[in-house]
């Protein structure tokens, strides 16, 4: 089976201007949403308390929210998490209240609303592990159970955000340096602009849809950054090879050739990675959902940006054969058929 039967080099660079314009508009839109809507940071970044509970029946989100708000918390969020029975409640930091206390209080309040009482429950799991926890019970049933609870102090949150920013800077600088050593600074700059454009677009999606931006999503964004730079590397590699091989071709033609000859690999590789990511979307559950979403957007735009953005920027920056191919200094006229001949 062969999916790509390309007879001649596709004239990608002919459309470079239009495509770059599209890129720019998408990029501007992403920046616009980032500024107007902002990212919906998880409590890992901004601090706060997150309580995940499971009801015996489908949960009434509005009721849950009202109960928690009545306790004196403001800006309470209650959302379904994976299923209709699972609810995640997020409470921002409230000055003067110890966060860990608020979790116990919230659980108790929700339990009372279901006419249950909180009890200390000691049990042994079927595997033989002793479990001691707080449970909510009524006379006959367990209307609600605590699945997880997180509390993050404000200092930790801002530190994590700063660490994330540092990691991002490290990756960007590292890749530019690597590409500059390996190829030429123009490629380094082109590669990183193309991939930062991806990152900004991923963030733009998260801002537009107000998806939760957590540490795991940040990891996905950075992983995608490293991964899609690959793509640019592969293309640049071919550009250099083509400059060496075909002396008569112009720069846009060389780039077209490089992209055409790698397009099948690009699509197959990214397709394979996307298969894995789809598997995560299907089986990974809510925790991995946004991680996989970030990867999906990253992979799609990664292909696009490596092909259309990185190469085009390198072209605008004026990449020449001389930048990549070290021409041996020759005193002889290259058109002299007898050049170099020694009698």
């Amino acid at each position, binding site marked *: 089976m062969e999916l790509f039967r390309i007879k001649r080099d596709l004239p990608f660079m002919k459309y470079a201007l239009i495509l770059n314009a599209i890129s720019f508009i998408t990029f501007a839109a992403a920046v616009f949403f980032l500024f107007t809507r902002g990212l919906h940071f998880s409590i890992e970044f901004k601090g706060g308390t997150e309580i995940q509970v499971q009801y015996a029946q489908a949960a009434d989100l509005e009721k849950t929210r009202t109960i928690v708000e009545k306790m004196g918390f403001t800006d309470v969020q209650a959302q379904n998490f994976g299923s209709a029975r699972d609810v995640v409640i997020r409470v921002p930091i409230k000055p003067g209240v110890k966060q860990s206390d608020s979790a116990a209080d919230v659980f108790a309040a929700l339990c009372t609303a279901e006419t249950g009482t909180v009890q200390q429950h000691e049990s042994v799991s079927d595997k033989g592990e*002793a479990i001691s926890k707080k449970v909510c019970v009524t006379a006959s049933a367990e209307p609600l159970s605590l699945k997880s609870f997180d509390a993050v102090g404000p200092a930790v949150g801002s530190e994590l955000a700063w*660490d994330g920013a540092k990691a991002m800077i490290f990756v960007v600088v590292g890749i530019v340096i690597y590409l500059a050593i390996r190829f030429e600074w123009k490629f380094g700059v082109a590669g990183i602009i193309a991939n930062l454009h991806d990152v900004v677009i991923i963030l733009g999606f998260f801002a537009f849809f107000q998806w939760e931006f957590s540490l795991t999503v940040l990891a996905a964004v950075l992983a995608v950054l490293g991964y899609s730079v690959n793509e640019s590397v592969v293309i640049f590699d071919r550009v250099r090879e083509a400059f060496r091989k075909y002396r008569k071709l112009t720069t846009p033609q060389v780039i077209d050739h490089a992209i055409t000859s790698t397009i099948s690999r690009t699509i197959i590789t990214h397709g394979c990675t996307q298969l894995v990511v789809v598997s995560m979307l299907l089986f990974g559950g809510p925790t991995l959902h946004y991680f996989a979403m970030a990867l999906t957007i990253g992979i799609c735009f990664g292909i696009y940006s490596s092909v259309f953005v990185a190469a085009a920027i390198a072209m605008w920056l004026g990449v020449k054969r001389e930048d990549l191919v070290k021409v041996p200094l020759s005193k002889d006229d290259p058109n002299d058929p007898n050049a170099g001949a020694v009698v």
Partner: protein
Amino acid sequence: MNRYPLWKYLILVVAFLIGALYSLPNLFPEAPAVQVSSSKVTVKIDDALVDRVNGALTAAKITPDFVKLDGNSIKARFGDTDTQIKAKDAINAALNPDPKEPTYIVALNLLSSSPQWLTKIHAFPMYLGLDLRGGVYFLLQVDMKAALTKKAEALTGDVRTLLRDKNVRHAGISREGNTVRIAFREADTRKAAEDVLNAQIADVIWTEAADGENLALVGALKPQAEKAVQDAALKQNITTLHNRVNELGTSEPVIQQQGADRIVVQLPGVQDTARAKDIIGRTATLEMRMVDDSAEAQAAITGAGPVPFGDERYMDRTYGPIIVKRQVVLTGDNLNDAQPGFDENHQPSVNLTVDAKGARIIKDVSRENIGKRLAILLFEKGKGEVVTAPRINGELGANFRISGAMGVQEAADTALLLRAGSLAAPMDFIAESTIGPSLGAENIAKGIHSVIGGFLAVAAFMCIYYMLFGLISALALAFNLLLVVAVLSMLQATLSLPGMAAIALVLGMAIDANVLINERIREELRGGAAPQAAINLGYERAFATILDSNVTTLIAGIALLAFGSGPVKGFAVVHCLGILTSMFSSVVFSRALVNLWYGRQKKLKSVSIGQVWKPAPDAPGAADAAAALKEAE
């Protein structure tokens, strides 16, 4: 050209065997176990206790899979939960004769059921993070300012004693923040004091200051001394926490330093945050009191008479009951340090340092009580116990030692006990989380399904698209998975849900190398190369690109490893490992398989790499390409 020497195959076989061996423990489920740990810092877990546990089990006619000493606890594994619960009761009855005052914590737990020979070669299952097994997590912030203030306070006292001893007249010593300020009336005295202080107290920088007419010396800790104080405080807090969490009976508590002033506590299997916090935040106190050796007290020890008025009866951890005075000579607050060392006769000793206030008191008390005994008591959970009760042989100062009739180990233990009683600096909970056990199990299932689903999808696609070469790529991918699991098991790095996502992602990214190779081989075939040459060139030319792409991915991975924490770090570890192993599996391993299959066929006519489409010679594109190629030559 497509032959590997024997040694390369041997390396691959060895890598495969090691990979398989160290991945193996992950296949065994967890089995019920009982864990015995000490409930008091004064009680040690040792081999003698293993024998007692064995004895208790034999008496109850229970045969465990094994009983072993593992760090600070004894673990015994059993075939089923019924035996486990019976064993717990039997051990509990044997070790804790008084259920109200348990000396040992006997808890139910889980242990891997992998066979003993695997454990002997240090093959353990992967270490699962809290999000996969359930438990509680705390992040504690150590109040370093308090530790420094304490140190400055101690320094103030030391300076006062020193200047008095040397007869240097000053006009007052005070602590200001973390510095010590000494006031003087004359410049000469200040000079004299400075000389004395510089000669006697290291670690402090003295600067001259003037406040109107008053002259002063301001002493601040040198930066390295400050750092040493903070490190010591952190270490002591970690030791204390270790002793405390033992009480919760968790199987593998993790207590680690994070950054300069933070401590992470992870307690797998624990669900009860309130109780865990209570235990972690508890304070133990140390007290020094005089021993009552009077006749009435002796009678009280044997039970012949009542405990004399003003005395209390405590247990010494080695010598049994002891009667001590109610009046407290010193508390742990005055004790600055306790270290094991040697005395002038080269006998092991415990060297104690008390602060200036403590030194004054101990000087007076010891002078009046030469020949009598001084008991050091540790109060935990409201109950006191005598750690040691040495005889006073002379007048004591700020530094004194306890020596005689103890081994090196005993000295070290006693020193630890004296230090471990209290926290060096207060701590605050700054982040915490609880993950229910059912959520952990769900997360494991989700992670495994994601990995398997992704692997099968990619393998199926590769086999269809590249035929035999696709199959080889899929095998290389499986080999990579095996290596990642083996390395993670060997390193005992924490595997979290993002880590499992990283395993899946590594599979998706590692296949890139094989796609590159296979596409190159097809390209060479399209260009008219002979099959053997095409394989060789394909691998050779693809390698530079593979290296490039892995380096860029690794840059991102290392950044995450360096700056990430928590879930991001878990992701990064797997990500980086996976990139490294994929270089090996997708290039070396797949090449070995290809060589094994095709290498010996001298007149190879075709390779099974799927259909290789060649543009028809009359097509205009092909003509262009041919022309271009010609130019290049």
